[in-house]
């Protein structure tokens, strides 16, 4: 039977410009992916383009170029570090320089601090309580956001670290439907936790798939759409990083970034191109399509 006058479901689809505008100066910003994979690079370039400042950046569990670029562009005030580096390509140069010169505040986390902090943020737990042993490490001694409390079951003093609840989380995935249901074809890493812990979450996706393709296999959905506030179509939106299941990372482009003068790089690849497709044009269709590799 025909349903008359029923309201229609609202598509959450927006543009990179609209998405970047949701991130305000001073926000706590988390981004997804890991190393040279699945970073929301097109959106990060747009955030820089919009001149966003004083971000408290929650670098992902092993962050490379996304964190380094935001630091190099002067957008970052405080950086929560679990790992920031370029894996086999060496140190992340702008992060290292900014940290050594004291231009950014570092919060020295690690995998537990980051992952269980986000989990506590998602749940609203007051803190993360640690089992014994971490007293022997320097992070809880040197990083002042760790605290202590009592374990009432043993009477022992324990270490705790804070819940992490970002203002905005940004992730990149292979597929998303217009209502925010995300499908990762490869590793999810902590993208699901970022979506759960953040007050708002934006997904950029290689393609926007119809709802029916989600409903056909709901167990493939990696993040349910109720956590997602905006969906942006961004093909090759992780370039020069990989998008798992769709294309490999462009290692030469990452090396070029590493070795470049940061201001020249920003002029050429961020402020120069008028939009994401103009950025992609700088690499050309042959190079991009040769990165394609499914799982």
């Amino acid at each position, binding site marked *: *039977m025909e349903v008359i006058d029923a*309201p229609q*479901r609202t598509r959450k689809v927006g543009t990179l410009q609209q998405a970047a505008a949701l991130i305000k100066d001073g926000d706590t910003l988390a981004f997804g992916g890991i190393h040279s994979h699945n970073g929301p690079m097109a959106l990060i370039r747009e955030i820089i383009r919009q001149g966003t400042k004083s971000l408290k950046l929650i670098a992902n569990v092993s962050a490379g170029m996304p964190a380094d670029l935001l630091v190099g562009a002067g957008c970052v005030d405080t950086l929560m570090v679990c790992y920031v580096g370029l894996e086999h390509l060496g140190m992340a140069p702008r992060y290292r320089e900014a940290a050594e010169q004291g231009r950014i505040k570092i919060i020295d986390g690690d995998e537990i601090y980051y992952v269980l902090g986000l989990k506590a943020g998602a749940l609203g737990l007051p803190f993360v309580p640690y089992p014994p042993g971490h007293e022997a490490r320097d992070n809880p001694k040197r990083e002042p956001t760790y605290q202590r409390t009592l374990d009432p079951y043993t009477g022992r003093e324990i270490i705790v670290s804070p819940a992490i609840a970002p203002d905005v989380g940004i992730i990149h995935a292979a597929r998303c*439907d217009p209502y925010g249901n995300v499908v990762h074809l490869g590793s999810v890493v902590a993208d699901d936790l970022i979506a759960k812990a953040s007050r*708002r979450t934006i997904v950029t996706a290689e393609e926007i798939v119809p*709802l029916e393709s989600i409903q056909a296999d*709901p167990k493939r*959905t990696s993040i349910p759409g109720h956590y997602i506030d905006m969906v942006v179509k961004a093909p090759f939106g992780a370039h020069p990083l990989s998008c798992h299941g769709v294309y490999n990372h462009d290692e030469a482009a990452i090396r070029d970034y590493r070795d470049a003068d940061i201001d020249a790089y920003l002029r050429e690849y961020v402020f120069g191109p008028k939009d994401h497709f103009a950025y992609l044009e700088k690499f050309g269709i042959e190079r991009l399509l040769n990165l394609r590799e499914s799982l």
Partner: protein
Amino acid sequence: MQSTMSKSSYSTGELMAVAIARQMKHHDGDWAAVGAYSQLPAAAMKLARILYAPNLWWLAGGGGAINSSSKLVTSTSDHRVLRGAEYVMNMEDIVDIEMWRYSRDNGKIVAVVGGIQIDQYGSSNMVCVGDYAAPKVRGVGTVGLCFGVSFGIVYFFTMHHTPRIFVEQVDFVSSPGHTPERKKYVPPLCQGPQLVFSPLGIFDFAPATGTMRIKSLHPGVSVDEVQSKTGFPLGVPEQVLETEPPTAQELAVLRTQVDPDGLLRELRITR
């Protein structure tokens, strides 16, 4: 166009499902949890998404289906509920969202739950009747009512309306209603119980006293009848409204798209 049918042409279950569905108009874009043994709210969520709140997200109980679009079945954790869903939550997912969603600014968490006792302040009990240490009836346990202090809004539904369910004071607070302790401890964004959908009517809570009062009575129900079946004095408004019966469109969608097997008409509902 939206003609009203006579009382005899729909069941109390259908009436209640429609009433809950209409309330979901206020929750378009919100996220609603439905528990076990919950055909009424499950049907309501399906109906609401078709007619009134297409942006409502809802969870079918412990099975974890988000936005199940299959026909109504008895158990919300039956695998058939997963068909046509958009995501399947495990228990960690469920606790993650039900424990603390009010920190997000893009949608409230709503729940439609029950209890073996519900009292005048909207506290709910699933644990025991009588003394906790030596109960007359040992209940099933607090289960998801622990989220009663983290949900943005709680609605109750009951399949029966008797003085054994609607008691003056619950014997165990699985989820607190408008109690002094809620006021003292629970963040104000977690607003607690707002409405009760029973087989006799719809009830809300007086803001001043936090006590239950009649909002509307279902067709054919009198104030005397509902008061006689309630274990505490109900607030009675100056003008007692009648619950608007299901429209032809609501019933048609319910019977063709939501509940083609007619489970809502077979429910053992006590009036």
